């Protein structure tokens, strides 16, 4: 029987996604035995031209953010060759950490890089010497370029998401094709799955805003109730709660839960309904402001992983009016 072909390509990748996949160890190798790996920079030595020459792969996996013209081309190339395209990792799906560069724009990002003290003169001249791919104004979601079939969210995708992906791979090798648009992992908000329960589930109130080092954490109690900002209410529960279990609040790396498209705005709204609800009347506006001013870098908190695919960034890029 002909073995199905697998290609894995990288955009702007930190390597974590690759490691997360490889971490599956034996489970991965037993499935990969059924596949021909035609492209995967970390594993087999093929050049990009060879990917171009291949007429068809069965499963194409795109990892990493799309930050340059080259990444866009690569995503298009992979889409055109693959029967099933997998968007792997939060960077690919929502922009991820590199997506925060959308705040600065390409020109300022390059300036920042070139004029830091650690950069040598030769590097400053680099773009003139070599023709580098053009940096996009903002890192972008793969969805703005092509339509993937399968989404594996997470930074990096959790074991449960990876195992769900392996299942798809092994099904495919047995001739069962995935249908429609599939999001791997639990779709509901993280709070549903969280082990730290609030005192009263129907009414969580945050009586202060504190950073982790500023308080003595009670280990089985809801973070929000203790005043620590946690993105649980709006984040997809596709992970195995590694942060929560290790006494760290959720930072939203799985992207928005089902039916939420802009997790930052949604969380901002939720936060306003939780924060100091019992104390509103005595604190009044001034007191509320004082506590809210403890939140610095709101974008970094609310949009750490999803800025390029947010409504908010449309406002920044001014692409809403076609002017």
């Amino acid at each position, binding site marked *: 029987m002909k073995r199905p072909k697998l290609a894995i390509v990288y955009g702007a990748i930190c390597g974590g996604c690759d490691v997360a996949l490889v971490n599956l160890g034996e489970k991965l190798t037993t499935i990969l035995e059924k596949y021909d790996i035609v492209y995967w920079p970390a594993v087999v030595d093929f050049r990009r031209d060879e990917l171009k020459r291949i007429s068809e792969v069965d499963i194409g996996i795109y990892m990493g953010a799309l930050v340059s013209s080259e990444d866009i081309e690569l995503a298009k190339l992979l889409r055109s060759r693959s029967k099933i395209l997998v968007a792997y990792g939060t960077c690919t799906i929502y922009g991820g950490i590199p997506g925060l560069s959308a705040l600065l724009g390409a020109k300022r990002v390059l300036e920042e890089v070139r004029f830091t003290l650690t950069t040598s003169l030769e590097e400053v001249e680099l773009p003139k010497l070599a023709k580098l791919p053009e940096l996009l104004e903002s890192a972008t979601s793969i969805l703005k370029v092509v339509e993937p079939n399968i989404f594996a969210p997470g930074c990096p995708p959790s074991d449960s998401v990876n195992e769900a992906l392996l299942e798809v791979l092994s099904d495919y090798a047995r001739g069962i094709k995935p249908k429609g648009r599939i999001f791997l992992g639990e779709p509901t908000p993280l709070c549903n799955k969280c082990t730290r329960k609030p005192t009263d589930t129907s009414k969580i109130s945050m009586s202060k805003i504190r950073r982790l080092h500023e308080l003595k954490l009670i280990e089985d109690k809801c973070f929000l109730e203790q005043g620590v900002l946690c993105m649980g209410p709006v984040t997809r529960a596709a992970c195995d709660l590694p942060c929560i279990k290790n006494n760290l609040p959720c930072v939203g790396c799985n992207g928005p839960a089902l039916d939420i498209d802009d997790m930052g705005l949604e969380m901002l*709204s939720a936060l*306003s*309904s939780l*924060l100091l609800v019992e104390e509103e009347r005595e604190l009044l506006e001034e007191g509320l402001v004082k506590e809210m001013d403890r939140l610095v870098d*709101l974008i970094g908190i609310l949009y750490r992983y999803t800025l390029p695919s947010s409504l908010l960034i449309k406002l*920044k890029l*001014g*692409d809403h009016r076609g002017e």
Partner: protein
Amino acid sequence: MVEWKPRIVAFLCRWCAGSAAELAGISRLSYPAEIIPIILPCSGRVSPRLIIEAFLNGADGVLIGGCHTPNDCHYISGNFKAFKRVYLLKKLLSQLGMNPMRLRIEWISATEAQKLVRVVEEFLNEVENLGPLGGIFHEKA
């Protein structure tokens, strides 16, 4: 070329700011026509998303009018919720590079038709000075 006029969306709660707008009408006070009032049950109903969508759909400024704190809101504490949302959103927008003056919240009771007119005129003026909201990469905060 047509002269640019700012567009302002005002979300007013039905019990206070909205009633004030009606009172202004009944008392024949006039206020600028650039403002589009939208009456909602309570200022606490205004989600951040509603505000952002207003900006995305062409508003140059967004005004939110509710009942006076601490005790006037018809739904007890909707105005406090609105206040927190607007304050945090202002922080968010200025981090993004947009002038937070484009967003304003005011408490206007049902009898304060005069105040409504003053606020609308003032706000319109401010937004007019800021100019149209295009791409906001270079807007000075």
